[in-house]
């Protein structure tokens, strides 16, 4: 439906004008934000920070001194150490597909927990350059993979262009293409790729709760529905999400 919205906006653009305006917004009390990831290709990492008011700078206070633990359903438990302010890691914790992980973070006497199951890895067969016509000719990168038979596979693609992460959320699932041989271009009208750009894509297989969280983020980006905080899988009212996912990365240079 994303394309549809893009199209609708293009049609409206006939006579629209945009302007940056001053707006008086309430200042929400700072809320705890936890973002945790257990990966099959590298160390686990949990970032803990706080929200700020809208008018403030985009610097988010790190929450230091927290106790962070991750355990799996095989009985292993890992403590993550604070390696930078607000960043907790453990190099020994490398995730295994099929295992369920539980995050437990204690901050100032309150404990926050979350579960995430790492899905099986789906081979990332190919990444290639393609051209699509949206409202103009657009160079894009596309992914190719084969979805395993059986509904319930969810994918997240993180695109990095010349070392800078693209903020657009690219997610897909197999609702309409179970068991399919899938080719999917990652379309972002604001990302004008040009010859010589180094583009890499990290393909993640994610669980349903994480997919739901990212869908919430995508809805916010598309501005199609009433804005709301994405549904977090972390308890006790913390913002953010905890994801156990597989990851594979490919890189190409735009020709």
């Amino acid at each position, binding site marked *: *439906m994303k*394309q*549809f919205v893009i*199209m*609708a906006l293009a*049609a*409206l653009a006939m*006579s*629209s*004008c*945009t*302007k*940056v*305006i001053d*707006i008086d*917004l*309430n*200042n*929400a009390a700072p*809320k705890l934000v936890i*973002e945790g990831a257990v990966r099959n290709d590298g160390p686990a990492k949990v970032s803990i*920070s706080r*929200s*700020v*008011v*809208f008018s403030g700078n*985009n610097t988010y206070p790190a929450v230091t001194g927290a106790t962070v633990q991750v355990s799996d359903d095989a009985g292993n438990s890992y403590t993550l150490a604070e390696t930078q302010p607000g960043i907790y890691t453990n190099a020994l914790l490398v995730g295994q597909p099929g295992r369920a992980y539980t995050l437990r973070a204690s901050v100032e006497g309150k404990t926050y927990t979350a579960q995430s199951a790492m899905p099986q890895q789906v081979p990332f067969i190919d990444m290639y350059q393609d051209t*699509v*016509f*949206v*409202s*103009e*000719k657009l160079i894009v990168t*596309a992914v190719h993979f084969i979805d395993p038979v059986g509904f319930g596979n969810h994918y997240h693609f993180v695109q990095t262009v010349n070392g800078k*992460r693209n903020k657009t959320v690219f997610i897909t699932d*197999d*609702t*309409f*293409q*179970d*068991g*399919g*041989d*899938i*080719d999917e271009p990652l379309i972002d009208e604001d990302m004008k790729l040009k010859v010589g750009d180094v583009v890499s894509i990290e393909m993640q297989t994610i669980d349903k709760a994480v997919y*739901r969280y990212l*869908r919430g*983020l995508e809805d*916010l980006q598309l*501005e*199609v*529905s*009433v*804005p*709301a*905080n*994405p*549904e977090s899988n972390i308890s006790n009212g913390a*913002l953010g*999400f905890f994801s156990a996912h597989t990851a594979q990365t490919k890189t190409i240079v735009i020709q």
Partner: protein
Amino acid sequence: MQIRKLFTALMCLGVAFGPTNAQAQVNQRYSISGTVKDAATGETLIGATVTLYTKKPATVVSNAYGFFSVAAAAGQYRLTVSHLGYQPDTATIVLVSDTNLVVGLYSKKAQLQEVVITTNKKNDNIAKPLMGAEKLDMAQVNKLPVLFGERDVLKSIQLMPGFKSAGEGNSGFNVRGGGTDQNLILLDEAPVYNASHLLGFFSTFNSDAIKDVTVYKGGMPAQYGGRLSSVVDIKMKDGNNKGINVSGGLGLIASRINVEGPIVKDKGSFIVSGRRTYADVFLSAIKDTGQGKQTLYFYDVNLKANYRLGKKDRIFLSGYLGRDVLGLGELFNADWGNKTATLRWNHVFRSKLFSNTSIIYSNYSYQIKVKSGDEKFRVFSKIEDVNLKQDFDWYLGNRSKIKWGGNFIRHVMAPGTVKAERASAGTSKAVQNRYSIEPALYVSHEWKASERLQLVYGLRLSNITVNGPGVFYKYDNNGKVTDSLRYAKGKAVASYWNLEPRFSASYQFNTATSIKLSYNRNVQNLHLLNNATASQPTDLWLPSTNNIKPEIADQIALGFYKNVAGDQYEFSAETYYKAMQNQIDYRNAAEVFGNDNIEGELLYGSGRAYGIELMLKKKTGKLTGWLGYTLSRVEKKFAEIDNGKYFPARQDRTHDISIVGMYELNNRWNFSATWVYNTGNAVTFPSGKYFANGQTVFLYTERNGYRMPAYHRLDIAATLEAKKNNRRRLQSSWTFGLYNAYGRENAFSITFRDSKSDPTKTEAVRTALFKFIPSVTWNFKF
């Protein structure tokens, strides 16, 4: 100013002119029934006032087919017939037996130079008991300024108190706090599920083909049912049964053509009306990328034919077909639209009992083709209704009229089936069709209890039953499936009965002052599932099921009406309170599309709406128009949103003002202007921000806790009639318009993002549409 004899086609049946005969039967009561028509075109007139001057004058109103019936003892009486926009007329009737008449009225426009003296009081607004009902004057609609010069009944409705636009340039509307899906929009009795083209910027109704529009914002009579907030009852023209007529218009973004004429003169007629936009011409002019060809247009066709089979029977066939087409190169192609058809048979049983039998078909569907990589996907969805309906109007003397009837609808809903063109693309999760039946019975009594007190009251019994085949789910409080049950074909899954009382009364203090009171309960059994902020072609409807309960609204309203300066000015004040049950909202990030467990994504709550609506209307003179003001509130409550507190609905707008003026300079130049002002919509803005998934994410603390800036806009238009030339049949006019004449940058949306100039900051961005949109349309008729 007795102009001419009014009964142009007087077909008095069995009228024996003889005083002795009349004398002999003086105690016997006879009825005068018949049809009111436009004398020039033969078009039947709905809502014409027919008054028979017996000792106590008896007044009746012609029904949806122009039919009326009054009764009196034998004798000689004066009869007047009048209708909005027509010369009223008078005749003397010698009543000696049941009489049938065809009354032809002349349009006022046909005699512009003559002074109009009305023979009967124009105080319908005071006397009629129905509250919150408004009849649109189509001649007026055609003069109002509109976006792109495309005249539009649904946008004209929005200029009346109680009706609010769903958004900039949008044909969707909210009535007394209700949702845009809570309006029953009927085109020749067929419900139109998606009444807009091009994402809401145009309505599906081509005003060339429309004869009559009556809207109800409360106090709906019992014959209407199925939606909570309003009824918009649109009747298509029958077509000229005197001679062939061609009319049309050329506009900047659309053209129209309308052909009407007799099938057999005075017996039957037809009308065909078509419209096509060419907005895509502008799009491709902006960006033509060869392969990336963009298409964006719509067309619609209205058809109607009627034939009179003798004096007592008439049949009508009407149809509508409209389609929007939108294409974005190969990437994305979609088309969507409505199809409706109505076959009706009018029969007069004796002169007091009028019957109408209808078979109604309505279909809304969309098809989307998406090309993703090498794969092509096709999405298809539809809602299809077949409705059998029977209505009776029984004229029980001059003070009493009973309407009763019933209908039986079968709904089939196919929510978004996705198919890949190549087998290797995998299989789609099945989304099941839903089958339901919706029967209803009603009875309504219109009663003039005394000269001062009039009542319309009735009862509607409605049911919805959702049937198999299919698998139905049960959900827990978090929307997770807890159980699934398979039902065989035709087996009832859930069934709901509801009684809907309707009551409306008017008490007249004198001919210029009255008060009215109404109470009505409305039930809605079809629910629009759309979590977007605007109308979309992918609107999905579902019936009430084991999870979704029927939506119920109870509304009570009180009004005061006063006419001054000999009915030249009408003033009205209405206040209402409406309580809504079983309202629907969505969970966050709800998966609406292609989800068989969609019901698990829904939240159920309640709503309340209240307000005051004031209107001052000037009805006659060179300058006509009105001034409307609404003070209102609408709030919703869901246990899962904001801890179960009431929050303002999106369409909650405290103040709403509309001023409409039309000035007739001479018989060539007409000017019109409208000015609207309203408090901004309630919206959800962030109150903070945080960092997650590599980006700034905004933090929301309360639903609809903020306001968009106030909205206001002035539109102007001028119509120039070409010089009359009696030797030529061609008549034409030019309409010039300017939408948003003072170029107010009204906020269409306000969004938030990382600042482009300073990445360490975030900023708010306002998007405004439609600043100074000029239009010109050439209309012709021959």
